[in-house]
């Protein structure tokens, strides 16, 4: 059991006095990130929805990045991964990341291929 808590977040930029304070600090941060996501989702700025990166809208990349940021702080501070041994942390984090990247790459590539078959092939489905 990790009784000694590391009280720094943002790579030591912000240091809290107690664990309780850190929890509230992380809550404030997560709330701000969620609010930014929702605001972007409602406004949908034209510049972000019309520029693409790797075949996906810039806005969607922003959403995914912010999600990963949120996931990081939930896992690191709420699930105490920050206080665990680095070996345990790596075993927990990198296993799913590796497998998920692999799966997502394969499935999305395949889906894009099927999309093209539906679009250019001799299949009529949208009627």
């Amino acid at each position: 059991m990790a009784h000694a808590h590391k009280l720094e977040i943002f790579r030591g930029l912000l240091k809290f006095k107690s664990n309780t304070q850190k929890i509230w600090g992380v809550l404030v941060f997560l709330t701000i990130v969620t609010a930014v996501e929702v605001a972007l989702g409602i406004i949908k700025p034209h510049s972000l929805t019309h520029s693409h990166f790797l075949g996906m809208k810039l806005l969607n990349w922003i959403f995914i990045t912010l999600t990963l940021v949120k996931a990081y702080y939930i896992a690191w501070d709420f699930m105490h991964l920050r206080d665990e041994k680095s070996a345990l942390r790596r075993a927990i984090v990198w296993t799913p990341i590796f497998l998920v990247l692999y799966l997502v790459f394969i499935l999305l590539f395949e889906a894009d291929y099927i999309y093209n078959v539906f679009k250019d092939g001799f299949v009529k489905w949208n009627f």
Partner: protein
Amino acid sequence: MDSTVTTTTEEKVWGGGNRPLNASYGKLMMWFFLVSDALTFSGFLASYGFSRFKFIETWPIADQVFTHVPFFHGNYPMYYVAFMTFILIMSSVTMVLAVDAGHRMQKTKVIWYMFLTIIGGAIFVGSQAWEWATFIKGDYGAIETKGGRILQFVKADTGERAALADFAKTIPSERTELDRKDGVWFMSEGYMPSYTVNEVKEGLLANPNILIRTETINEDGEKVVLNREESLKKIRDASQVVEGANLIHNEYGSRLFADFFFFITGFHGFHVFSGVVINIIIFFNVILGTYERRGHYEMVEKVGLYWHFVDLVWVFVFTFFYLV
């Protein structure tokens, strides 16, 4: 700083009782479970991505599907889901505060924080049930074509959605819902749409203000609205009226969207539900003083891990179902 192996004396290495990862058996097993569960959810979300990329040009837009807030009328996309997300994050915070109080052996504080966590979880599950009910009931109604595509209706002057009730004609007909009292005992039908295809067709012909909106998404990320002539041509393909959504028909667009919605949020909701049940069990154990006698509150920490995981999954579901 963090070394991998923590053996103090070399003699102990083979004697057992080592904790190379400095975590107890129970906690490690919880982490194993969470990693495998994370892979299950990833599989669901990845297959959602697969179906979505397959039908990238016709996929429903979440903003136009989830537009309701309880007790309010009108079009409020996203606000309610954002509220649900906040509730879940908040209950995660009270959970982590309970774990923190457990480390300090403060029983009363653990009880209160666990209680608040359970309330938060209950609010979330209730909200999800409401979200399901709204989704299943549907709001405007639509027409399904022979090819299984969905045609929705908009008002030409304002661009707002038009409900079937706004324009469909009422044509008297003999067809009524088959009730058990009218047929043989095993014959009854669960549901009959409020309008027939013919009534919608006639309504569209009579009302020049109504246009058809197809599933196709244009470059601006909006659904394509047909002009009057195209609408009248398109309505000939109509095969049935769809109100609401289930696993087979979906008035919001692609039926796969509804399937994945039920499956993924349902699986997540089941996790939240079981999390609440486990939390309640631990809550009573804390009240009875089980962990006070045991000398540590590690059990609270373990259910805490599960609870945070549920929150973590929701963060991803929220992004991929409602935002992206």
